């Protein structure tokens, strides 16, 4: 399947916007203007390629915290993200209740998730079950890091989806580290994809830095899921170029040489080079995209800094559905 030039440019733009937003978050943190950031740098091709296969607002997504590029692909804006970084009331995920990068927005059927890892995998199975009972052609994409596939919850979720042939895509973003622990301390198998074999569903490992390959692999899995042919595990092999979060120091567990080496396989760089070779992108087009991204992010920071914090009273609700104040709910 050959992807159109427009689609390629749109995906590249999304990766670029996500990367620059992510980089700005690190800068804001260094400047003391935000308290915390967890980065998706190095994951952009995998996340954007997978997200673009979905029908936004029709399909469902149960993400994890390292999914900034995926969320931007699904419709969150730099403004939404910077509002969340600053804990401002109108951030769409939680009204300032959750830490940043804990996503939730209904317009793209992105369900709210927590910080204990792999809980969202089970919700994806449940959504898949509901889809099957409703006999629609929707699918669920759920993401997770490779370390979190050690959790029993992940196995139970995949097992459910396999038993009932649910339309769930279990995407594993294998960035080779769970904070400091390398993959070898998480599993005896060579790939996460192999775990799928024992549970009775197809599993593949692919190069997560190859945007076109990611898109095509997910497109096939989604097509099978829509046709009632069941779930898949797709492991996208990437590299976490940054520390785990702004509170982590990765110098204590991996060499600078290793990180530098992986920077040569930066998905943004690889995608740009490939698309320039194909004539899909030109330096001029990329420069225009850079300027546009900078403008959006500058505006986002300016807007978010001026935006109000929640009133303390907002911390008291909504504990129960009866307490929801509809006019305040950001259903974005």
């Amino acid at each position, binding site marked *: 399947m050959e992807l159109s030039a427009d689609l390629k440019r749109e995906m590249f733009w999304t990766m670029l916007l996500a990367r620059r937003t992510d980089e700005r978050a690190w800068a804001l943190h260094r400047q003391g203007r935000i308290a915390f950031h967890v980065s998706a740098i190095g994951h952009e091709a995998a996340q954007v390629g997978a997200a673009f296969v979905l029908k936004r607002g029709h399909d*469902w997504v*149960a993400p994890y915290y390292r999914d900034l590029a995926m969320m931007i692909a699904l419709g969150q804006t730099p403004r939404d993200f910077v509002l969340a970084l600053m804990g401002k009331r109108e951030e769409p*995920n*939680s*009204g300032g*209740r*959750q830490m940043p990068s*804990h996503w*939730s*927005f*209904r317009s793209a059927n992105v*369900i*709210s998730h*927590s910080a*204990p890892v792999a*809980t969202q995998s*089970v*919700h*994806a*199975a*449940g*959504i*898949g*079950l*509901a*889809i099957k*009972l*409703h006999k629609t052609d929707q699918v669920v994409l759920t993401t997770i890091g490779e370390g979190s596939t050690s959790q*029993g*919850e992940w196995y*139970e*979720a995949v*097992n*459910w989806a396999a*038993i009932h042939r649910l339309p769930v895509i279990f995407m594993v973003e294998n960035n080779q580290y769970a904070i400091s622990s390398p993959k070898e301390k998480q599993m005896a198998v060579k790939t996460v994809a192999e775990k799928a074999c024992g549970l009775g569903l197809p599993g593949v490992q692919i190069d997560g830095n190859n945007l076109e390959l990611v898109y095509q692999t997910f497109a096939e899995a989604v097509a099978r899921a829509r046709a009632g042919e069941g779930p898949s595990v797709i492991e996208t092999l990437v590299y976490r170029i940054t520390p785990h979060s702004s509170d982590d120091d990765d110098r204590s567990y991996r060499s600078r040489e290793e990180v530098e080496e992986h920077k040569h396989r930066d998905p943004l760089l690889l995608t740009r080079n490939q698309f320039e070779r194909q004539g899909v992108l030109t330096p001029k087009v990329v420069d225009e995209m850079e300027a546009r991204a900078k403008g959006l992010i500058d505006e986002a920071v300016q807007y978010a800094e001026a935006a109000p914090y929640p009133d303390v009273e907002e911390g008291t*609700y*909504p*504990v*129960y*559905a*009866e*307490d*929801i*104040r*509809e006019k*305040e*709910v*950001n*259903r974005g």
Partner: protein
Amino acid sequence: MADKTLIEAIRQAMDEEMERDPSVFIVGEDVGKRGGVFRATQGLYEKYGPERVIDSPLAELSIVGVGIGAALYGMHPICEIQFADFIYPAMNQIISEAAKMCYRSNGVWTVPMVIRAPYGGGIGGGLYHSQSVEAFFTHIPGLKVVIPSNPRDARGLLKSAIRDPNPVLFFEPKKGYRLIRGEVPAEETLVPIGPAEISRAGRDLSVFAYGMMHEYCLQAAEKLAREESIDAEVVDLRTLYPVDRETILASVQKTGKALIVHEDNLTGGYGAEIAATIAGDAFTYLDAPIRRLCGPDVPAVPFSHPLQDWFMPSVEKITQAIRDLHAY
């Protein structure tokens, strides 16, 4: 009106709600052809089919987690945990996820779900088929915790729980499944989640209980009224969280004495919260120390009959506790 057992009333509630609302479905271990190990879902698989009465893998966290996912999609799952003792693998899903979903998404996502679980001892179930687990959940804002003590309430409260837009823990006193009988109205009757009920009005002291212990308290109070002219008021809490503070306080303001009975062990048990409520807001009405009659602080109910009898509050022990408090 029809005379039913507790379990028949529970089954009736699920049947009626599944008939009313196609988004209601049941998921749990052996709930399908087997009809549940206690027969709570008997006949429902035949009536509603395998898509709405789903035999789950033997894995409790995913019974709840899959329920949460389906609820987010817009369905109304009834998740059955075979014994309350087996609910712990699902704690993360209940506490981290179901309870916090509405708050953490600022109301964008809600989890309309019921988790049913038989609880309680006195049935020869030993450590792992006898536990009372309510205190773990009455600590968690975002959850509702309901325990019926009679067939009328079991049906009416379960129907309310299924219609509630929040996660509701519905703990059923399994010893009473076939022991407790009572009238169930023929017409549809919803019993609201929230209000406690004064099941026996009295002047001398107040007894607070729920589930099987409420049944025992009622028997003890009737016996004492007949034989010793002690007029105990019995309050069936029914909804443990959020609790009906007004009914509790009004009762103590009337009688001046409070006894709390539960079979869960004493320390950190649900009775402590009731005692604190009374001490905090009805202190000047008290004529005696607040008393608690609870299971002992051992890990769980032991199996052997004499040990089990030692553990469990009984009509006799409750009778004596009421007598003692009355004499204070």
